[in-house]
């Protein structure tokens, strides 16, 4: 399945593929979304979502691991810091401002976004640190949001920005700051419009816990986890490649593309294999080979045809 073939169709005219794939579930989820819109969840409330055909056939990583072992430097640098230090964070009320090269810039309330047809997508998640998970995200294709703002013809990239709240995010205050804030990320517009790319508002059947990027985060399953920017407050369409935080911090280690690629090592460790969290335990081998594009090559390799993936890591 190759969605990307030049010459480009104006971005605003591409019909999201999930409309073709799941019209019935679309309707069911819309009904669920309408229910939700009446009263916003404060934290970890049940979410209704249709099952998406995008579901990998691998054992899910236990919820306990998904919600207690991750990186979210706004809450600290340790893997246990996000769950330990995110209690004070208030994910509601929330708005996401979408602006830049769009016909209809708009600030969306979270309620409006949660009312979009929600799907459950079971995706692999490959961290750049060579560990991985299988996570049942709930969300909607980013293209569904982009459609609403009608990207202009010269929009080529999408820039994302995380909230800055030092009083609620301990990693953003104090003498030692691990990264410059806000955390920023970016995608090429065709990557952003790819049906696999979603904005997630939930995981494991519930709204996102604070530590996983509440209330809304990006999930791009064929890229390393750090591309999945969390707690998004701003999305801007641009004609220039936007900056990304880890790329700014260590350009030789983290590229703009950050596509999962077992052939291109991180300068300090191999990317050929990964530890699947929650499997194998202490003595069992839980290391498995890493797949090109994290196993999504069939869907996304076409986006990069002709590109040198060693240079564009």
């Amino acid at each position, binding site marked *: 399945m190759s969605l990307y073939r030049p010459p480009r169709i104006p971005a605003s005219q591409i019909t999201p593929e999930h409309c073709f794939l799941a019209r019935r579930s679309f309707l069911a989820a819309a009904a669920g979304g309408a229910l939700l819109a009446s009263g916003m969840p404060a934290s970890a409330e049940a979410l209704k979502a249709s099952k998406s055909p995008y579901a990998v056939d691998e054992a899910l990583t236990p919820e306990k*691991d998904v919600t207690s072992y991750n990186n979210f430097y706004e809450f600290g*640098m340790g*893997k246990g810091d996000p769950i330990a230090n995110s209690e004070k964070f208030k994910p509601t009320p929330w708005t996401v401002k979408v602006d830049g090269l769009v016909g209809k810039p708009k600030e969306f309330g979270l309620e409006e976004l949660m009312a979009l047809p929600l799907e459950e997508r079971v995706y692999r998640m490959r961290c750049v640190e060579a*560990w991985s998970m299988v996570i049942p995200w709930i969300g909607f294709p980013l293209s569904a949001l982009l459609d609403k703002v009608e990207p202009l013809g010269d929009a080529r990239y999408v820039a994302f920005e995380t909230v800055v709240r030092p009083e609620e995010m301990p990693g953003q205050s104090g003498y030692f700051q*691990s990264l410059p804030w806000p955390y920023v990320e970016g995608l090429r517009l065709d990557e952003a419009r790819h049906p696999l790319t979603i904005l997630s508002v939930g995981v494991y059947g519930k709204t996102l816990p604070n530590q996983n990027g509440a209330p809304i985060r990006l999930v791009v399953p064929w890229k390393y986890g750090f591309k999945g920017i969390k707690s998004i407050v701003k999305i801007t369409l641009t004609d220039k490649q936007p900056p990304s935080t880890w790329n700014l911090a260590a350009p030789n280690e983290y590229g703009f593309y950050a596509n999962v690629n077992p052939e291109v*090592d991180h300068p300090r*460790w191999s990317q050929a*294999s990964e530890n699947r969290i929650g499997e194998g*335990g*202490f003595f069992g081998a839980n290391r498995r080979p890493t797949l090109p594009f994290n196993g999504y090559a069939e869907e996304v390799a076409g986006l990069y045809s002709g590109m040198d993936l060693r240079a564009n890591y």
Partner: protein
Amino acid sequence: MACLPTLPRKYHAASIWLLYALGLVPAAWGFWLGATGRLPGNPVKEFEHLLGLWALRFLIATLAVTPIRDLFAINWVRYRRALGLLAFWYVLMHFLTYMLLDQYLNFSAILVDIAKRPFITIGMAAFVLLIPLALTSNAWSIRRLGMRWVKLHRLVYVIAAAGALHFAMSVKVVGLEPWTYIGLVALLLLYRLARPLIRGGGRGKPRASAFRGQERSA
């Protein structure tokens, strides 16, 4: 500083064995947590990191013995061998965990790691350099090697620096923790370099007293 009560001589040997026993508690505790599924997320990595950190702590403790005696007149030289050997055992366990539990004896991957990843190369070099020190940490070697023993064991400064560097280079952002270890090792190294000036006279020539305690404790 006489405020510290002196340990009667008859307890010296027992206190050294106690140090060995206590020193191995973090490893045993971590192993038990890991083996019973109580380490979060990536248990093998957690255990590997715990062992590496304790190795670094024992290295720093080993290096701190002399400055503590110089500056505070507290003589813990009798514990120095135990501290150094604990550091060695922790480095060995750290490496074995990486080889067995993490890489599952995938030797090609391990060799590529050691050759290609500077932080692993440095860590590996520190481990290799520690081996002769561990092997010669006995009274017989001290007697046999004499001044050469002192020179050989100065490698511990290189090893500690390599250890701190290995840690700092392994993390994505060098935060407070790796900086603390780098700072401590740097401080101890600087003290070692400045010691002849501070104490005057000796021109950095090692004196027999620097290792006499080691021999006695055997």
